[in-house]
């Protein structure tokens, strides 16, 4: 490094870069803290007429519980609806499709408008080696990002399957970066009585769900920020 009259260009850009990185990181952290603080606060009344909704389905009980919840929501408020399930889950999207078709028949319509069914790559299959899981998780995250950029939902409904984690994390990042403000509602499965699932625990601790629901009183005692809503089934 030269001393004296002349500036040494290299160290100056290095300092400027470091300063820039620090500033951006600080800004992002503050913004993230603000988002975490604002999440969980109800939206203002005039905010939404209807909300585009992403519905995350999971094998077996998860889908049954989710469809049960959906039956209680006004369909004209939660539209358009996007159903998403893991690529290896064959039954869930079929069940959701059946339910939507029966809705159409009931209201006398002809076609499924503004409803889409999608599959997403799984981060990890049961029993998969952890080494290959790193690669598949990255692919799953990239796929989730692609899907979320296309949909940019205003509401996300999920109830436990690991599929929901990358989607919820990306939704949170969208809030931080300002791409889309969304509301994530997480309903822990009825099968979870004393302990949360891994997805639930992560979303609860990281405060990434706007509202977190549990179906048994034991969980509400352990996780006081959760809302106890009784059994859904």
């Amino acid at each position, binding site marked *: 490094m030269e001393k004296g009259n002349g500036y040494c260009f290299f160290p100056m850009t290095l300092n400027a870069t470091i300063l820039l990185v620090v500033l951006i990181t600080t800004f992002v952290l503050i913004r993230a803290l603000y988002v975490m603080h604002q999440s969980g606060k*109800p*939206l*203002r*009344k*005039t*905010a*939404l007429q209807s*909300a585009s909704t992403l519905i995350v389905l999971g094998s*077996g*009980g998860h889908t*049954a*519980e989710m469809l*049960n*919840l959906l*039956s*209680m*929501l*006004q369909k004209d*408020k939660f539209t358009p609806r996007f159903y998403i399930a893991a690529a290896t889950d064959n039954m869930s999207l079929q069940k959701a499709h059946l339910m939507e078709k029966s809705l159409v028949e009931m209201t006398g319509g002809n076609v499924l408008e503004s409803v889409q069914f999608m599959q997403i790559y799984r981060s990890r299959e049961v029993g998969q080696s952890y080494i290959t899981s790193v690669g598949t998780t990255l692919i799953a995250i990239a796929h989730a990002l692609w899907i979320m950029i296309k949909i940019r939902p205003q*509401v996300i409904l999920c109830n436990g399957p690991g599929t929901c984690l990358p989607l919820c994390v990306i939704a949170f990042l969208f809030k931080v970066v300002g791409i889309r403000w969304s*509301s994530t*509602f997480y*309903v822990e*499965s*009825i*099968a*979870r*009585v*004393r*302990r949360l*699932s891994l997805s639930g625990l992560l979303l609860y601790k990281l405060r990434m769900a*706007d*509202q977190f*629901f549990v*179906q*048994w009183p034991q969980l509400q005692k352990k996780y006081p920020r959760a*809302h106890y*809503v*009784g*059994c*859904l*089934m």
Partner: protein
Amino acid sequence: MGDTDDCTKAERTVFVTVGTTCFDALVKAADTQEFKSELSARGYTHLLFQIGRGSYIPTKSTGEDGSLVVDFFTFSSSIADNLRSASLVISHAGSGSIFETLRLRKPLIVVVNEDLMDNHQSELAEELAERKHLFCTLPQTLYQTIATMNLESLLPYRPGDAAPVAKLINRFLGFPDD
């Protein structure tokens, strides 16, 4: 249920279901002579297995010699009809099977599969057993449960509903309540 007349007993079926899992331990435990005799002694006439992905095949029997009629199948698109025509259901601890059976108000014995990693399913079965909505047991204690159970002691399960959640979600988003 079946017809009753002078020659035939009313049909009382015990339905064993493992859902989409492999649960050989349960099928084996229910396929023993001792277990089947106990069922006959308690007035059951038919034993039907839904064995899913299991590899153990139970022994079929036409019951001509007055013993239990035994049959099995692997999967069906819906076990609702099997549940409806059963007098007793013995099920793995999947929440779907459990609540489908409870909603039909059938007596239910849930058998927990200890070979499953991270056995969170047992939490649900144990909690519902504590509330006396079903009996909870293991394959190795299934016989004892059958031999000592008192079905009268079971309490009916009142189905829950999602209305409280829907209300909170609507309120959060500023949607009017239905």
